[in-house]
């Protein structure tokens, strides 16, 4: 079970009251509802709060009211792509750890995403341990 894995022990670290005692909040941006719902359910089951957005614009608009600890951005979105969203956030001077996810792994995109400041680049389908560890690492790195 995941409880024994080193990944989840690291997860325990980030979920610890080091983050001012509250639960982590992850923003999920994906144009497909079943994917959004499934990822949200996964995060909730791992003790992480999650909010979902169907487009980059929707997510960016929400940033003024509520800022998540980490954003999981789908690369292929109608309108602004995941990378566009990340760039907009960086341009706005906001430091937000991001995990880019994609169902269509193209050559060079991972490098571009990482160069643009994404913490991790993951291909769908996403294994829970890998995803949670990626989020933990992104948030952990941000917290250091």
């Amino acid at each position, binding site marked *: 079970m995941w409880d024994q894995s080193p990944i989840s022990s690291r997860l325990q670290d980030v979920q610890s009251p080091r983050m001012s005692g509250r639960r982590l909040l992850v923003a999920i941006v994906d144009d497909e509802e079943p994917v959004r719902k499934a990822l949200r359910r*996964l995060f909730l089951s791992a003790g992480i709060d999650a909010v979902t957005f169907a487009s980059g614009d929707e997510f960016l608009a929400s940033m003024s009211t509520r800022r998540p600890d980490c954003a999981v951005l789908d690369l292929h979105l109608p*309108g602004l792509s995941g990378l566009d969203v990340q760039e907009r956030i960086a341009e706005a001077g906001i430091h937000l750890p991001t995990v880019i996810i994609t*169902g269509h792994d193209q050559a060079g995109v991972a490098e571009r995403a990482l160069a643009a400041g994404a913490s991790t680049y993951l291909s*769908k389908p996403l294994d829970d341990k890998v995803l949670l560890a990626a989020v933990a690492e992104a948030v952990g790195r941000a917290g250091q």
Partner: protein
Amino acid sequence: MSRWSLAPALGPGRRKSIWVSSDRLSAFQRTALVAGTVAAAYFLGSLLGLSFQFPGTQISAIWPPNAILLATLLVTPRHRWWIYLLAVLPAHFLAQGLMGIPFPIVLINFAGNVGDALLGALAVVHLAEQPLRFDRLRTMGLIMFFGGLVAPALVSLAVGELFVMTGASPEPWLAWRLRLLTNTLAVFTLVPPIVMAAARIPFIPPWRRVEATALLAGLLAVGTLVFVLPEVGLQQILALLYVPLPFLLWAAVRFGLPGVSLSVLTLGAMAMWGVLSGRGPFATDLPIENATSLTLFLIVVCAPLLLLAALVEEHRATEEDRRRTEQEAREQRRELAHLTRVVMLGELSGALAHELNQPLTAILSNAQAAQRLLAMEPVDLEEVRDALQEIASEDIRAGAVIQRLRAMLKKERRDLESLDLSAITWEVLALAHSDLVTRNVSVITRLAPYLPAVRGDRVQLQQVLLNLILNACEAMSGVAPRDRQLTLAITHETDGIHLSLGDRGVGIPSGAMDRVFEPFFTTKEHGLGLGLAICRSIVVEHGGRLWASDGEAGGATFHLLLPATA
């Protein structure tokens, strides 16, 4: 004994090789079998010729062995001719020995027979188009002229002289005339059925058997009426000789060359029967004159009908060739359409992987979330149930993606069915969905409700639409993402169901509006230029039209018009 048949050397496709054995036989065994058969036929032909001998003479109305030999040479390769010529030698000696013919004459006859067949076959092989096609007027004309007239005429000159020298005939011209006529009739009546059978050209297809029986009955009836019932002599019944003509025409038009040959043979046999029973027009006092007139009568009747039958046959064969060519072209178009479909899906593979990865992501995350939920205390069963529910529905969705793909990749021909063009459009949009998202292309659809159905092949029409959509996306790759808009409309017009697909891309250069549908015309860097050409051929095969026009808001618009079903 293995099944074998005389199949022509000499024609395209199904008529490829000469003595084609169906199986198991080696080339040697095959040749030996053919040689044996030819020898047997030669022997039987000699006996048949004998049975057609006029009473009180040694003159036959028809002399089959030479014709059998000629037919054999025509359907076998030249380098094996010597084998068959040697093979008939014992048959010749046996048959003529049984007839009590003196040895020198037997030798002269053999030389004459071989001369007839060789000379005729060489002339035909040299002058006719290769490979020989017996369903061609030219080939049949050459066989009749050289094999049936020129060769026996020349050879009979020599044979006539030799007969006079050996005392077998009082004067050369009589021998020449009799030998020529009997050989001519044999070539006219026996070579066509033999070579056609060897070429496996169907003579009486099963559904014509009733008709063939009726024709035979008619021939027997008129044969009896003309050749068997009347009293001796021609005087009062001259007109009766024309009575068989309609039946022979029937044979020529409906049963081709073998039909004519066998019908003339039938009439000839009945005439002989009449002669033997002392009745009919050819049973007068002078046997030699009788033999000559009967043979001449049959030759004169046979020749024009054979040419007519050859003409009909040629027409039919040409028509069949044209149909076959068309069929092959259709098959090739279908193959090409499949190939381009596969290539197109290959180009889409990334997007399709995405299309599959989405439901797989939802399934995996839901499953793993459910595992985590089940490990908690207390278990939130409601949430677990929801997760399972979504796993099931996402699985179905993934299955549908694979289903669509499989349908597009399938090769087999489908039957035409009644189709809803709107439904097809939605299916294609679903297939292209990820690609459209990746390329930032938005789609506006204006599909009229309650459209009549169109008749067509679902996969092929999907291919056309997918091709048009991908082309439009390609055309818009250079414009700003917010302008990448595809407008898809389906309306019911008076002349059919009209689908238009407008993009805001670079458009089509003036003058190339129709050239984009030509094969190998492409404006893309990596395109083959076949996509639209194949699309148009598919649409045309569906009885529709596919064309392009300038778009209203820039770009290009492609139009697809398909006839509506009632």
